[in-house]
């Protein structure tokens, strides 16, 4: 089992004929993800890699290929419309990889998506992988292994680093999700924690946060109040200066709020095991899981 992406996932790739879209579509197909359709307006009727049908619209991909999940690789200036198109077409999970979408665009787009009963992961995220079942996005599959650890993170490569440590130690993953580095995102830590708590295949969760905002603090409160499964956490940016955007649009300490110290303190207070460095993830998880 797993969360959000699984064997039921029937994927449409929006921007399948683009540079990034075609590369990752191939990667996902190789991994075994059911890539049932691609969308590029004007290329409807063609096939991708000789077998995946391309449609002009997501609506057609849903109607004719039965897509239920979408992954978006289109450039930032078209990405919001791609999200809204997927929501209008009845897609239930949208994963938006695209980086560089203006925050005010997302602020307007999110209610539209939610009113249609749709979940958005991202934008500016690496997507999700449920090892052995399905991969939607860009997380390198070779570092993952099937297992029972849920991983949720605001970052990309830092996630890979930690997942890599887990896999090497024999701790496979139920699902690994990157929720994205932007300040306004569709799926929060809490959404993922709740899903992991409800997922019978997940035994413990690794939460990877960073400076900026208060998502980790809210997640900590949620863990304390609602979770029975062990959670361990890491916060990047202990040495980040205030007021500077550390790569991710959302990774910025505003005034005195959003620091790594306050987040680590909030995690600790909620009973979450806090790592001082990524390499501690395995011993800490083993300790918390009692094995």
């Amino acid at each position, binding site marked *: 089992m797993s969360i959000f992406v699984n064997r039921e996932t029937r994927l449409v790739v929006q921007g399948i004929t683009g540079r990034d879209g075609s590369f990752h579509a191939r990667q996902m197909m190789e991994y075994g993800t059911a890539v049932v359709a691609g969308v590029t307006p004007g290329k409807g009727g063609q096939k991708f890699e000789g077998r995946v049908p391309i449609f002009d619209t997501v609506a057609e991909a849903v109607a004719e290929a039965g897509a239920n999940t979408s992954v978006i690789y289109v450039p930032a200036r078209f990405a919001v419309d791609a999200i809204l198109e997927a929501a209008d077409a009845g897609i239930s999970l949208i994963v938006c990889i695209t980086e560089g979408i203006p925050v005010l665009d997302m602020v307007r787009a999110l209610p539209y998506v939610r009113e249609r009963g749709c979940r958005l992961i991202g934008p500016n995220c690496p997507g999700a992988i449920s090892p052995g079942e399905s991969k939607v996005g860009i997380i390198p599959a070779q570092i993952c292994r099937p297992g029972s650890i849920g991983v949720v993170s605001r970052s990309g490569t830092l996630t890979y680093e930690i997942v890599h440590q887990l896999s090497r130690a024999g701790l496979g993953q139920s699902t690994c999700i990157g929720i994205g580095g932007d300040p306004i995102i569709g799926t929060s830590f809490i959404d993922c924690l709740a899903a992991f708590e409800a997922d019978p295949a997940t035994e413990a969760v690794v939460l990877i946060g960073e400076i900026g905002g208060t998502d980790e603090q809210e997640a900590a409160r949620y863990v304390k109040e609602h979770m029975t499964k062990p959670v361990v956490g890491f916060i*990047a940016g202990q040495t980040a200066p205030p007021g500077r955007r550390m790569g991710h649009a959302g990774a910025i300490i505003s005034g005195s709020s959003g620091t790594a110290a306050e987040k680590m303190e909030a995690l600790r207070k909620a009973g979450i095991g806090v790592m001082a*460095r990524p390499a501690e993830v395995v011993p800490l998880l083993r300790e918390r899981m009692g094995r």
Partner: protein
Amino acid sequence: MNLHEYQARALLKAAGIPVPDGEVVTTPEEAEAAARRLGGKVVIKAQVHAGGRGKAGGVKLAGSPEEARARARDILGMTIKGLVVKRVLVVPAAEIASESYAGIIVDRASQKPVVMVSPAGGIDIEEVAARTPEKIFRVAVDPRYGLLPHQAMGLAFKLYRQIDQVRAAARILEQLYRVFIDAGASLVEINPLATTPDGKVLALDAKLVVDDNELERRPEIAAMRDLDSEAPEEVRAREAGLSYIKLDGTVGCCVNGAGLAMATMDLVKYYGGEPANFLDIGGSSNPQKVVAALEIITADKNVRVILFNIFGGITRCDDVARGIVEATGKTPLDRPLVIRLTGTNEDQAVAILKEAGFSALTDMDEAVRQAVALAKERA
């Protein structure tokens, strides 16, 4: 991207918000001339991207044009939080009856623009929020509707009782929201929003931060970027498509991915070192970016050792290796290099580096420990 006060007030003025006249100048003589044109007492204000200008001596009152020149001379060229003052704003010294605060941010929790006002203006709003949170009033705006007239009025009633002032403040809030949206801002502030003894409501200071992701579609805002006011190496980094922030340490870091870059800095600190910078080469693996990154890091004279930490995913390790070889081939390094790379095309990368005489590690902790040790040796 931060705008200067003079740029922000120009946007406010264009939106119809009452802002006193003012002139931005770069020399004491121009400041004198500006003060003469404005008449009466003036305030000389340093135009730098730093808070706490006033405390640092960057804001001065001048009673005459001559004094304006003297004060401008004091301020121009001074350094505030590491930034040299190259411009001053000359504005009339307004008589003030009351000072309030008005601001708009994108609130991450509600995922909406939030308009805030406080009758406790003129001082640091974060302090007000911490000490007397009941003095801050907020309205979360549905961005599909914008700030509604009744919402603006409701907030304005928190500042004033006299209906003309309430209506004037409500109008200013609606105009401020327009500026916020039209500029693609992530923050806009008027502090203080002042009343004059004859009852007018005025914006006496303005702050505006633009979402960097908006700049591509707003060339007129992007053109306001003041390269003079930024560290030159950060300007170069941005032009090369890198995300770079200079710090004070000795271990230069070159990492792919923002989260891993922060974690690398943290690990340097954990092992007793000090990171010299944040540097994210981004997801794509263009050797040219690596070359530019090395140039920028080595230009920092504090750097004693250079640490690469690459986790190959989309980034291909061999591309990074090629970049390192290319850059060091042109200009041999005068400082040691510690390279950690793992993931996509790791083996090819190790082979490329080996041929050029470099060795590579695969463990992050080990690499950071080595780098810190080298930095200490070379102290």
